[in-house]
């Protein structure tokens, strides 16, 4: 109906490059129209988008259940916090280092258990997330500051001329990272690796039989997902200027899991919608304080009842039959 009445607008929105330009423009203009509070909400939306994208690699692309993703997020955040406060390493240098630390942790922990299937792996990841959180609380070697956490983390800066210390600058920092990540992941989806991941998700035995080394591909997904979560942890730590274990609870892992489920497994636009839902919803319903989690929960149940595949599910068959036809324009049936 609407499409027929506004053919022009519908056309603009259906053209992918234009759509992307419009959305990007919207993101660029948005912070100049609203107060710091709304910029900050958009910042946390960005953090959750990044976390969602990182879990989407593991859960969406490869179909591995991971309910301990907050663990990687925590490792990224604490790597940043500890190295910055104890040794004065600049935040931006720590950005790749946090990613590396989380990735290394994922590699070491998941190497021996990557062969586990479905819910067995789920339990391992769940335990991993809790172990990380409890270790942080127990203050190993006096590094993590126990339940109080680490405080006094710097702002990210490039020399003296560019210091990221306002809500606006943090907004652009996180969305720049999210933008680059989306770019990379879209390319990855169409690559050999992306298709191998999807193959493993759909039928691991068949994938193995076709010569895909499912073990290394699954491990790669975990390592990459952890690295991105580590990046999110880095930005989060420098934004809040302090980290503490209650930011990385099981609940946080659940939220990240929900982002992917709500949006649609394996779908990048879906993850963004899911992240928006998770980060904006509690803020919108803030006036209802006590009841907002109730509303949040029921919204989620309704969501799962009426759109079990997610808001924006990924279309099957990324490579269209037509595009394989080449110049002849018709299939040789």
């Amino acid at each position, binding site marked *: 109906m609407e499409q027929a009445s506004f053919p022009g607008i519908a056309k603009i929105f259906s053209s992918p490059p234009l759509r992307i330009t419009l959305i990007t423009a919207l993101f660029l203009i948005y912070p100049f129209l609203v107060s*710091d509070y709304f910029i900050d909400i958009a910042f946390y939306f960005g953090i959750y988008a990044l976390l969602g994208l990182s879990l989407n690699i593991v859960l969406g692309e490869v179909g591995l259940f991971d309910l301990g993703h907050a663990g990687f997020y925590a490792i990224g955040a604490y790597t940043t916090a500890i190295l910055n406060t104890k040794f004065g390493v600049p935040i931006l240098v720590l950005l790749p280092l946090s990613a590396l630390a989380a990735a290394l942790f994922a590699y070491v922990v998941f190497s021996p258990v990557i062969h586990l299937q479905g819910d067995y792996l789920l339990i391992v990841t769940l335990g991993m997330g809790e172990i990380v959180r409890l270790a942080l609380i127990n203050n190993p070697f006096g590094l993590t500051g126990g339940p*109080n956490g680490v405080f006094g983390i710097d702002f990210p800066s490039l020399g003296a001329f560019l210091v990221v210390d306002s809500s606006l600058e943090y907004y652009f920092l996180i969305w720049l990272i999210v933008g680059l990540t989306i770019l990379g992941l879209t390319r990855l989806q169409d690559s050999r690796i992306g298709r191998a991941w999807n193959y493993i998700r759909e039928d691991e035995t068949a994938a193995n039989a076709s010569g895909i080394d499912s073990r290394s591909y699954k491990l790669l997904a975990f390592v990459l997902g952890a690295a991105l979560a580590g990046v999110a942890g880095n930005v989060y730590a420098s934004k809040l200027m302090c980290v503490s274990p209650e930011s990385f609870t099981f609940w946080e892992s659940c939220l990240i899991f929900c982002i992917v489920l709500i949006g649609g497994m394996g779908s990048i636009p879906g993850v963004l919608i899911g992240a928006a839902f998770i980060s904006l919803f509690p803020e919108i319903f803030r006036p209802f304080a006590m009841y907002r989690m109730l509303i949040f929960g029921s919204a989620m149940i309704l969501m799962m009842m009426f759109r079990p595949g997610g808001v924006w599910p990924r279309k099957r068959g990324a490579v269209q039959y037509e595009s394989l036809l080449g110049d002849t324009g018709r299939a040789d049936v």
Partner: protein
Amino acid sequence: MKKYVLLVSVLFLALGLGSVHAANDTVVIGLQGPITGAWAYEGQMAKQSCEIAADLINKKGGILGGKKIVLKVEDDAGEPKSGALAAQKLVAQKDVVAVVSTYGSSVCEPASNVYEKFKKVNIGYGVTAVRLTQRDFKYFFRTCGRDDSQGKFFADFVPKKFNAKRIAIMHDNTAFGKGLAEDTRAALEPMIKNKQAEIVYYDAITPGERDFRVSLTKLREAKPEVWYFTGYYAEAALLVSQARDIGITCPFVGGNAAINDEFVKIAGLNVAKGCYMTNEPLPGDLPYPEAKEFLDAYKARFGEIPSSPWPIYAADALNIIAYAVDKSGSTDSTVLAEYLRDKVDGAPGITGPIGFTKQGDREGVPFYLYVVDDQGDIVVSR
């Protein structure tokens, strides 16, 4: 389509409800606390306490010549990220004069950064981490004590009370126990220099063990006149009973985690009675007229008095904001911050006279010595 229109209008309605404008004859004070989440219990009680405190002031004619206090509550879910957002939300509202914020130290940290940046007075009520007031912040205060206030209270009060010079300090190597022991030792330092006190024993026990006789024998040889244990009740109970067995008779003082009803049960009434503990005063034990008035009003509305010490600090934070606004005649943050820092000294509060140090810490934080009485109840030792 209809569905979406409905959804969008519901969302806007929700946003609209949040921004009810206050009239000119009111003074809006914010409260940021864990209304939901793991510490919802604390947050709810803090909210109720602040409501009561505001009502009491309003009933007496308000402040600034008749203006009523309106409370504006923001939930931070006991979580740092939500804390920072709640703070952003409160600073965005120009009519909020100052904020009572918040319960947990790690939630307070990012939130107080926001308040500081936007120059809004914020007074913590359950935030005890020492570091919070070591950041040279202009707008941060707290009505509660710090993690090291307990050690200071012990040093100021206990040796005098027992007329003891030879002090034994025992901890359990946990972050909490060790911290308290170290703070106590640091607080005793000046007395040791003046030869008024001497630490004759300073060591740790291993939590979870059942037999502490080796450590206790060493303790006995040190001949302490008072013995301070900064760990938890399970070890405390065993320690006291085994100590009495081997003939250590000096008074036992526990930290605020060492003595509770469980302690009395494990140690037995015979051993437990006469054991002391240092603790924040529970609401019912406060001797001030303001406390009685507040608790009566609280009980009348909610049926019982707050079961935790912290909510009354929230009420006191609100009281002191109201006091400062009234006396300084200004709602400007900078004026208020200066007034609180320099002029407020001994303002009446539920938890006793309120004053702040240059860093924004509470001056003279109330701690009490509690004792197990003959019935096994834990009462204030007068």
